[in-house]
């Protein structure tokens, strides 16, 4: 079998395509896995809630463990810099009010993500 035939055979092309895809994916992961997670907290009327506590919990097989907390700024924005999980839950608290827990699923550990839908506190907040 000549080199030309080997290079155009599926036994060469399929593994090469897979290797290129895997390499490309790993490069993408490397460039987008800083653990940055950001979003907003709003009240029932949609106004930003400053100084609210946002709790980040990590899912395991059966457990859910709190990993980090942060506070919102004056515009109601929050930010976590060191998330290293792919399956997390976020919850906002302000005074005695808590938002529903929001599950965030990421494509890889520590994926940088801006959560489009804000955490919404109930009317009593």
């Amino acid at each position, binding site marked *: 079998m000549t080199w030309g035939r080997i290079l155009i055979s*599926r*036994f060469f092309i*399929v593994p090469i395509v897979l290797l290129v895809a895997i390499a490309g994916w790993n490069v993408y992961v490397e460039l987008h896995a800083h653990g940055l997670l950001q979003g907003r907290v709003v009240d029932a009327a949609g106004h930003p809630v400053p100084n609210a506590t946002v709790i980040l919990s990590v899912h*395991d*097989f059966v457990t859910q463990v709190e990993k980090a907390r942060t506070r919102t700024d004056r515009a109601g924005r929050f930010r976590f810099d060191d998330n290293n999980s*792919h*399956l997390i839950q976020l919850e906002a608290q302000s005074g005695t009010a808590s938002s529903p827990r929001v599950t965030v*699923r*990421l*494509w*890889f*550990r520590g994926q940088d993500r801006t959560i489009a839908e804000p955490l919404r506190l109930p009317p009593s907040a």
Partner: protein
Amino acid sequence: MRHKLRHAALVAISVIMLAPFYWVLKTAVTSENIYEYPPHLLPVRPQLFNFVDVWYLIPFPRYLFNSVIVSLIAVAGNLVLNAMAGYALTLPFIGRRSVIILLLSCTLIPFQATIIPAYLITAHFGLLDSYLGLALPLLSTIVCIFIFKASFDAVPRSLIDAARIDGLGELRILLRVMLPLSTPAIATNVVLSFIWSWNNFLWPLIITRSPDMQTLPLGLARFLSYMEDTTGALYAFVVMVLAPGLLVFLMAQSAFMRGLTTGATKG
């Protein structure tokens, strides 16, 4: 008309046979329970996060690496040892018929019956909990020896005689003449040894001691003990285990079929 009917019947049988695979795939890309009633024929809210869960919740890359290494060793061993054994069985020697009968008789013995001696031999060589030990029982398989033998039997004797006259030794005849003419048999050996090694459960279960040496089928059993209700992730794992074997089979499919039928029309 008869041709169309036959075709329709074959399509119907194919659909029935592929239905379980479709159901596994469908469950893998949804969060449905496989026993959900009423069942949905099409996936509801399909997503691929179950595959991400499998990748991270258990040491999947480690299992994958172990399975790949063990399968590569098994494939390499099968190609080398089976080709040599198959070629030896095409040559005339005293007791050849007895050896063939002995080998064929051995195919009647189930692997489970020989597992204790196999374990003791592996332990004697100090290969427990090692990649070579994991691949050892599949380094040569009788079925694959006879696939090579059938393929080598189909090569004209005059070609081998010509090679001998040109001064080639037996090993070079095997490498330069027989194997290049037996690519379907090689493909069949690769596919069968890869799939048998990839799916092997009992032997790795017995000889692995550390979790780091476990292969994908053991990982699947371990995963089952963790994930009883999240069926989507479970079936995503099944798909991830099935995919490499399926890929190898699809790549070598045509040569595999030819390899299995080589020698059937000898003469």
